[in-house]
């Protein structure tokens, strides 16, 4: 699943500094290639820069074996622009519409669909509110866990209420969000596309917090909690090594 990044320039600069290929090598290299393309380098120059980056990240990797992959990634990256979005703004009118739904799971999923649709519109103005992310990613971002059958029925409910619609093609599972309304004051600014469901819940109160290390919004389990589970583990390891 491709991670959703609002500011690819900053993200790539961090990766270049950390010399890290991240969880998804293809996505990382694609963004690095777009970064250099935005600076005006030619295709061959970008290939050379990407190869150099890969070698710096892991000098055991065989560049010869990865050549075709890198060429394909660079070619594909040249067709799109570097994404540089400050935030995705959700308005009061949109929040009210979502909040009027029956059930917090529906609300979280609808909120996530709205964020994804607005992200798509920001990246490509002709997007027109369509969401083409996989169900798995949508429900993961919404922090909703349910079977695939129930996922489809939940979306069916949203469709019957007019919040979303679909294309006529029987195998096209993209979703069009119908409740985009930018003619209202901004209620919430989304700068991080992780745990969108929890960000929605936090807006309406509840025990949610931001991790002091990585910034992800999580559900607070203790009063003095500062970090998310992943960061807490890393910090513990660092403290143990220091001692």
């Amino acid at each position, binding site marked *: 699943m491709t991670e959703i990044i609002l500011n690819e320039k900053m993200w790539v600069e961090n990766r270049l500094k950390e010399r890290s290929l991240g969880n998804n090598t293809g996505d990382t290299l694609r963004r690095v290639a777009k970064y250099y393309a935005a600076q005006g380098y030619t295709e061959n120059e970008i290939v050379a820069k990407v190869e150099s980056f890969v070698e710096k990240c892991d000098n055991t*990797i065989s560049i010869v074996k990865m050549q075709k992959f890198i060429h394909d990634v660079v070619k594909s990256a040249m067709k799109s622009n570097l994404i540089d979005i400050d935030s995705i703004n959700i308005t009061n009118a949109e929040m009210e519409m979502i909040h009027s739904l029956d059930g917090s799971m529906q609300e979280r999923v609808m909120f996530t669909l709205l964020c994804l649709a607005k992200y798509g519109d920001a990246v490509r103005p002709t997007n027109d509110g369509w969401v083409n992310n996989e*169900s798995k990613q949508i429900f993961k971002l919404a922090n909703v866990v349910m079977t695939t059958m129930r996922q489809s029925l939940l979306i*069916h409910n949203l*469709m019957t209420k007019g919040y979303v619609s*679909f294309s006529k*093609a*029987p*195998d*096209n599972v993209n979703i069009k969000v119908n409740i985009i309304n930018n003619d209202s004051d901004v209620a919430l600014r989304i700068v991080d596309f992780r745990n969108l469901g929890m960000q929605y819940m936090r807006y309406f109160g509840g025990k949610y917090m931001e991790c002091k290390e990585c910034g992800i919004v999580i559900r607070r389990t203790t009063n003095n909690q500062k970090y998310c589970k992943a960061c807490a583990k890393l910090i513990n390891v660092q403290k143990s090594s220091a001692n």
Partner: protein
Amino acid sequence: MPRYWYDRMANKLPDNPTEEDIARRELNLRIVADRKPYFMRYIYPNIMSDYKKYISNARTKCIRTFGITLDALESMDESEQTEEQADFLRRYYYRFPVGIHDCVMNKICRRIENEFDSRTFIYDAEDKFDISILKTDAEYTSFEFQSIMKIYKEFNDKLKEKSASFTRKRKTDDDDMIEEIWMENFRTECALVCPNEDALYNAIIDISYKKNWSKYFAWEMMGDYIIRTLLKRRNYTVSYPVEREDGDIEYYGKRFAMLELEVAHD
């Protein structure tokens, strides 16, 4: 092969079509071979993949659109279907990635599929692998078990890490040597946690074989011990099949007989 034989979109009318052009196009569209027949999904993996994706997406789309499964929609009487449902089904069949008409090969394919579908393969718990044939009588403590479980998990994590690195580059002799060194380190760790070899062996077998977990750890740590234990149980006798014309076992069109061999032991 002319493109209009297999590409529907290539069947275009010229700017000022005649009656003959229109008739020819209609004929071509009726007979265009723009998709392979249904049975060929078992021959071409990409067609199987396209087919499965189409069915999966269509099923999801049907539930999202109508709140009922595709099977339920297909089994509904036409008179009960709404216009949208009928339209959905029409498009569903029109856009199918394979030809589903009743040609002879398709009929044979469906007949064989039905035959396999009608058979239920029951997993009988009685047939589950009996790990007692691997084990000895030695006992281990709960602490030893937990400690070895920890080593087992570290081993598997390390293995995943190594596998990921070896997909990116070719394994060299140095890598083999490094791998042997860390295998030896794990063996030493196991021995430190549980000095009694028999008890260690039983603990490792229980961890690896009781649940459906990776057995690689067991064979790397105690492979020799497993073989020795099995041989001891069978009085150091090994049975093996040999191809013989008068053999009592028939397999793959050939006949085999089981022979026994006594293996040297200490």
